Each structure stands twice: as structure tokens, then as C-alpha cells.
């Protein structure tokens, strides 16, 4: 086996990417060595079990993936606006729309939201860490190695090219030989395990580690959305695990689940994929709803309108999300009865979602709105998301779906819900909780520039696509030289570059704010408008989070704490705090399993078995590991708190 056998060759764009990746790699290596930061990297980050640091690593990875997925998107838009330019060939185009979709859903949206949950949920419920900090680190590294595995595919072995849904029989061994689809299967499998573990971890954390007195219906709405999301994760991700495993076994070991030989049933893949895939949609949208609810309540300076209804509508959405999967493949050819059942269940979901929209509007009604950057993202979400939601109901009508299916109408629809919902929420949440993470706010002026560029870019990009779809432009099309489509495609591409510009301003703002933003002195960063416990801690948050955990018996407890002059540091009540020890085991264990997955991708069984054995040895080590953590002494807590609070 020679290196050139597995490297992707012959594509100038990919050569460019290889060179730039190599340069960035060398630069990072050089910088870490020059500033002697390798030890720091290992001690502070790679071995950490602190939920806040893990959350930051999730968000950094997600931003990196947003960049990667965004570049894919730009390349597609260039190709579609100027079809005669020959910018991409058809194979490369197929690979790019596949990686764009997969990365944006699995490696951007989910880790971004999980990162925010990691940082904020324990702070909102008054916990010192996750229920299982070791498992949390394991989850992150499984996601990280899954992501790395998926991303190296475009330089080594070739990217998957069967769409992010990876429908069989196209993605089966007969029609897609080679490692491409295996990268998809193993990358998702590895990171999916981590997601499932996070779901369990967060559920136990929320159910067992709330502040004294805090009942479930006292929890902040973002925590509620996390709990409901985790419920969906726990019940939906095993389906993906099985589906991926079955297709892997089909491809590598020659079974006949989804093949055209041996009486296999290719549509069974679509069935299983969407049984996971539809709940997955709600996994990425419910936390977004939670974030918007927090932001809107904070900057409307009111208690969230209809808190109980908000919670129940989320629960109803979660239950319904398992009953609608067939609407993703109405055109499979099932009879009218099957399609009608799922058409009706699909439209039912619009009801609780509509309830939530009206609750946000009612929260805003007659309030003194403060137009900060997170609030702008949240306000922009409401009308934009409604456009996506209404077109979703159109798609949900089975008969009409035969017209809309696989057209740009669908593309516009799901970008309207996923960008206006999830991506806006990620930005809103990141800006909103940024001071909690890094001790300083993001610059408001640059933030507004980023927002307006992204917001207008988004609508300019995707609104025309509804009409392209109605004009009959199918998705995943590589040549678009139909005269009627040309103007709208050019407009759409302009919009896409507007979003790209917005993203660049956002990233520049990260740097600019790091250099020039004022450092936070209080924990309650947004002009004292904080309502929930995360604002009650100091900024930056000490590693043990709360010196003393307050008693909570209402929604928005921090409002009353401020009125009564209470803090999370009651000196007389400070006791030693039990904290978990850092450990490098999760990183090493997942590195081994990542190696095993890499071996399976190329069907190098010795590598796979070696990696698997390494993983098992690490698990056995873990079983014999009785490290019980350590106690933070009272003196140290008092010193830290006094310094942070300027006492």
C-alpha cells in the first residue's frame, strides 16, 4: 500500500485544502512548541473533566465545522450561479453537498448546542459538575474523533457522496465501493455514541443534581428544553446506531439488509434513518427554543409568558416527533392510507409549535425591549422561523408533497427552520452566555454588523429558493443552465456570500473582543437583567461553580436573590466541595476507538482489531479505577470568592 493509493489526487481545490491544512498544522505545532504550551494543552484541556471547558471545546469545534460546512456551501453556490464555469465536477459536487449536510447537522448544530448545554445547564440548576464528569469527557472525545475521522475523508480516501441521508442502494457496497461511505458510517457511529452518553449524563444531572428546593417546574426553560432533548436523544440515537451498524455490516461483511440481491429491502434504510432523523430535527430545535426563551425573557425584562404551557408544548413535541417520520419519504410509493396517517400526525406538530410562538409574542407584548445582539437574533428568529414552519406544513400534505419533494422548495424550507431556528439560536446563545465563558462580552457594534449581514444574507440566499423549487429546480443538481432559473440562482449566491461575510465579522469579533472588550467585574453581565442562577455566580465562573448553593423554590430565582441581597457565597455556610479529578483516560480510550474506526473505513482488520483491543484495555483500566476525586478546602473557596467579588 502506497500513500498515493489513499490520498485524493487530481483536484486543484483539494490540493489547496491539503496545503492550507498542512500549513495550519505546522503553524499550530510550531506555536505550541515555541511557547512551550504542550504541557498546558494536555493538563488544562485534553485531560479536563470540567463541564465548562468541555463545553468551550465543543463550541470551538462547532465553529470550525461551521466554517468547513460554510465553505462547502459557498462552493456549491458558486457552481450553481455560474454553471458554465465548470468550477466543480459532478463527483466533487456530490461529495460537497454530502459533507455539507452531514457536517452541519451532526458536527455543527449538535455539538454547538451540546456545548452550550454543557456550560449552562449545571450553572442554571446549581450543580458543581455533571453527574458523570468522566463520561462527559468521553462523550466529547468520541465526538471529536468522529468529527476528525469524517473530515479527513476529503484528503484521504475520498469523501462520501451519497447525500447526508446516505440512501441505499446508492450507498451500498455495490454502487459506492471504496472508503467514502465508510467514513460517513464510522464517523457518525463514533460521534453518535458520545451523543447518547451526553443524553444520559445530562438527564441524570438535571434529575438528581438540582439546587435544594428546585422542583422540575422551577427549572429555567433552557434546562427544561435540555431535559426534553435528552429524552429524545436517549430514545432516538440507538435507532441511528443500529441503522449505521447494519449498513456497515452490509458494506464490509456482505450481509443483505439493504441490498438489491438476497431479497434485501433498500427502503428499510430510509425507514430507519428517518425514525432517527425526524426526532433528530427536534433534538436540534428544542434547545434553540430554550435559548430564545431565555434571551427574550431577559431582554423583555419579564417572566416568560406561559412557562407551564411552554414546557408542556415541548413535551408534546417530543412525543409527536416519534410519530411522523414517514413524511420524509411520502414519495416512496406507499398507499394513501399510510401517507395520510403520517400527514395528519405531521400537521399536529404545528400546534404546540404555534403555541410557543404566541408565548414569545406575549412575553414581548408591552415590555421594554432592550435591543442587544442576542435579542436581535431572537427577534429575527420569530418571523423567519414562521416562514420555515408554514412551508413545512405545506410539505406535510402528502398529496402536495409529490410536487415539492426533492425540489429547492424543500431546501429552502429546511434551511429556514434550521438556520433561523438552530443557527440563530447558537449565535444568540453564544453571545448571550459569552461573558460567563470568557469573562468579557462580545463587542456590540461588530455583533450588530455580523447579525445584519447574516440576517439579510440568509433571506436573500434562501427566499428565492422557494421560487426556484416551485419553478421545478430539483435539489442536488449540478448543472443549472436553465434560463428561467439563472437570475434567482445568482441572487441566492449573493445572499450566501452575505452570510459568509457575517460569519467572518463574527469570528473577527471574537478576536477583537478578546483584545479590547472590558473585563467583567460582576457575574450579572447584562445590566443586571439576569434572572436565573447562572448569573448569580461570579465571572469568570470558579471551577467549583457555586461556593454555596442557594435554596430555590420559584422560577427565575436570581431576581429575588438580588432583591434580598443574597449571593452564592454565604461565608458561614461554606463547606469543602467534592470535585472529580482530571484524567487523560477518555482521550486515550477514544483515540484507540477512533483508530479502530479508521481501520474499519479502509477495511484494514488488523488496525481495527488493534484499536478495539486498546479501547477494551482502557475500559478495563477504568473499571479498576477507584479514584474518588478530591475536596476543595474551605480556605481556598473563601480566597477565590473574595478575590472574584472584590471583598
Amino acid at each position, binding site marked *: 500500500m502506497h500513500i498515493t493509493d489513499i490520498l485524493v489526487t487530481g483536484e486543484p481545490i483539494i490540493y489547496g485544502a491539503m496545503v492550507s491544512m498542512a500549513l495550519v498544522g505546522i503553524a499550530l505545532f510550531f506555536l505550541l512548541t515555541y511557547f512551550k504550551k504542550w504541557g498546558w494543552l494536555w493538563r488544562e484541556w485534553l485531560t479536563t473533566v470540567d463541564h465548562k471547558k468541555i463545553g468551550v471545546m465543543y463550541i470551538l469545534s462547532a465553529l470550525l465545522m461551521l466554517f468547513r460546512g460554510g465553505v462547502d456551501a459557498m462552493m456549491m453556490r458558486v457552481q450553481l450561479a455560474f454553471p458554465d464555469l465548470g468550477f466543480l465536477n459532478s463527483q466533487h459536487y456530490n461529495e460537497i453537498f454530502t459533507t455539507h449536510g452531514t457536517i452541519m447537522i451532526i458536527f455543527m448544530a449538535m455539538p454547538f448546542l451540546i456545548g452550550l448545554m454543557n456550560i449552562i445547564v449545571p450553572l442554571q440548576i446549581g450543580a458543581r459538575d455533571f453527574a458523570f464528569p468522566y463520561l462527559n469527557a468521553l462523550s466529547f472525545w468520541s465526538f471529536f474523533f468522529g468529527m476528525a475521522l469524517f473530515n479527513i475523508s476529503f484528503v484521504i480516501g475520498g469523501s462520501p457522496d451519497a447525500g447526508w441521508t446516505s440512501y441505499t442502494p446508492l450507498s451500498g457496497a455495490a454502487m459506492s465501493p471504496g472508503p467514502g461511505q465508510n467514513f460517513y458510517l464510522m464517523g457518525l457511529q463514533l460521534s453518535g455514541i458520545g451523543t447518547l452518553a451526553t443524553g444520559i449524563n445530562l438527564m441524570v444531572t438535571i*434529575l*438528581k443534581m438540582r439546587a435544594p428546593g428546585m422542583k422540575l417546574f422551577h427549572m429555567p426553560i433552557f434546562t427544561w428544553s435540555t431535559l426534553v432533548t435528552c*429524552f429524545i436523544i*436517549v*430514545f432516538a440515537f440507538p*435507532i441511528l446506531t443500529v441503522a449505521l451498524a447494519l449498513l456497515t455490516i452490509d458494506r464490509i461483511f456482505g450481509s443483505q439488509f439493504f441490498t438489491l440481491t438476497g*431479497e434485501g*429491502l433498500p*427502503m*428499510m434504510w430510509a*425507514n*430507519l434513518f428517518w*425514525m432517527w432523523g425526524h426526532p433528530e430535527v427536534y433534538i436540534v430545535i428544542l434547545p434553540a427554543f430554550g435559548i430564545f426563551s431565555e434571551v427574550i425573557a431577559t431582554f423583555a425584562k419579564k417572566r416568560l409568558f406561559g412557562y407551564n404551557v411552554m414546557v408542556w408544548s415541548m413535551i408534546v413535541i417530543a412525543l409527536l416527533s*416519534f*410519530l411522523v*417520520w*414517514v413524511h420524509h419519504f411520502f414519495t*416512496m*410509493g*406507499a*398507499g*394513501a*392510507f*399510510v*401517507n395520510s*396517517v403520517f400527514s395528519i400526525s405531521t400537521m399536529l406538530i404545528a400546534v404546540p409549535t404555534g403555541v410557543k410562538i404566541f408565548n414569545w409574542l406575549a412575553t414581548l407584548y408591552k415590555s421594554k425591549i432592550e435591543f442587544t445582539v442576542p435579542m436581535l437574533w431572537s427577534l429575527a428568529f420569530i418571523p423567519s422561523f414562521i416562514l420555515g414552519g408554514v412551508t413545512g406544513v405545506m410539505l406535510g400534505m402528502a398529496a402536495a408533497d409529490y410536487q415539492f419533494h426533492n425540489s429547492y422548495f424543500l431546501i429552502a424550507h429546511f434551511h429556514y427552520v434550521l438556520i433561523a431556528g438552530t443557527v440563530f439560536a447558537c449565535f444568540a446563545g453564544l453571545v448571550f452566555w459569552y461573558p460567563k465563558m470568557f469573562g468579557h462580552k462580545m463587542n456590540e457594534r461588530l455583533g450588530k454588523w455580523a447579525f445584519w449581514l447574516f440576517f439579510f444574507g440568509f433571506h436573500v440566499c434562501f427566499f428565492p429558493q422557494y421560487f426556484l423549487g416551485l419553478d421545478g429546480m430539483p435539489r442536488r443538481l449540478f448543472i443549472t443552465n436553465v434560463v428561467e432559473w439563472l437570475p434567482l440562482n445568482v441572487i441566492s449566491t449573493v445572499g450566501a456570500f452575505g452570510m459568509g461575510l457575517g460569519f467572518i465579522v463574527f469570528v473577527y469579533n471574537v478576536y477583537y473582543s478578546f483584545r479590547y472588550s472590558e473585563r467583567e467585574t460582576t457575574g450579572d453581565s447584562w445590566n443586571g437583567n439576569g434572572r436565573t442562577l447562572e448569573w448569580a455566580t461570579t465571572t469568570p465562573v470558579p471551577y467549583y461553580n457555586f461556593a454555596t448553593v442557594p435554596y430555590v423554590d420559584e422560577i427565575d430565582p436570581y431576581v429575588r436573590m438580588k432583591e434580598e441581597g443574597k449571593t452564592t457565597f454565604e461565608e458561614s455556610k461554606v463547606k469543602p466541595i467534592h470535585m472529580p479529578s482530571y484524567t487523560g483516560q477518555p482521550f486515550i480510550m477514544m483515540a484507540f476507538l477512533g483508530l479502530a474506526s479508521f481501520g474499519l473505513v479502509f477495511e484494514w482488520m488488523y488496525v481495527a482489531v488493534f484499536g478495539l483491543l486498546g479501547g477494551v484495555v482502557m475500559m478495563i483500566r477504568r473499571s479498576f479505577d477507584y479514584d474518588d476525586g478530591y475536596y476543595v478546602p474551605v480556605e481556598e473557596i473563601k480566597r477565590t470568592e473574595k478575590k472574584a467579588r472584590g471583598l
Partner: protein
Amino acid sequence: MANSKKRVPMNHVIGFVLSLVMTLVAAWAAIGSDLPVTWIIIGIMILALLQAGVQLFMFMHVTEAESGNGHVPWNMMFHGFALAGIIVAGSLFTMSFGFDHDHGGGGGDHQQHEEQEQQDHSGH
């Protein structure tokens, strides 16, 4: 630490005997009896659910109050099994494509029951 518990846990013994009896009844129904196929399938599926109940409630302490975990174990099992029903029945329903199968077997029995669907598939 030594609890003053009795030496032989009667509920375990009862659970064990029950599951043995139910297994034998199910095996007899399937192999030895002349009952109609549909009734056999419904009967042995009910027996399987009952056996699962024996395991959960008599062996696994699913509702043990001292656990401090409240309704969570019960809740997860309930929703897990509900979803199992949705996944199995829903897959059979969807992948049947909603069309009646064209073979004339089964004695004109048109129940939408999942086991019936399985039976239809065997006729392909």
C-alpha cells in the same frame, strides 16, 4: 450491615417458577397445540410481555422506593416499550406500503395486527 432478611427470597422463587411455566406454556402452544396461528401468536406475545413484567418487577426492583430515583426507571421502561411498539408496528405498517398482499392465504383474515403482517411477508 447484615440485614435481617430471610434466607430464601420467596418472590424470586415465585418469579422463577412463573417464568418457567410461562415458557413451557408458550412452547407447548407453538409446537404442540392445534390452535389457530393468529391466536397462538397473540397468546405467546402476551406471555412474553408477562415474563418481561416478572423480570422487571420481581427481579429488577423497578419500583424500589429506597432507590431515591423515583419514577425514572419505571418511566424509562414504559416509554422504551411504548416506543418499541411504535418502531416495530410502524416499520411493518410503513414497509407494507399500505397495500393488501396479493396472495389469498390466511383465511381472509384482515387484521392490521403486526404479527399478521409478519405472516403476510412469509407468503412472498
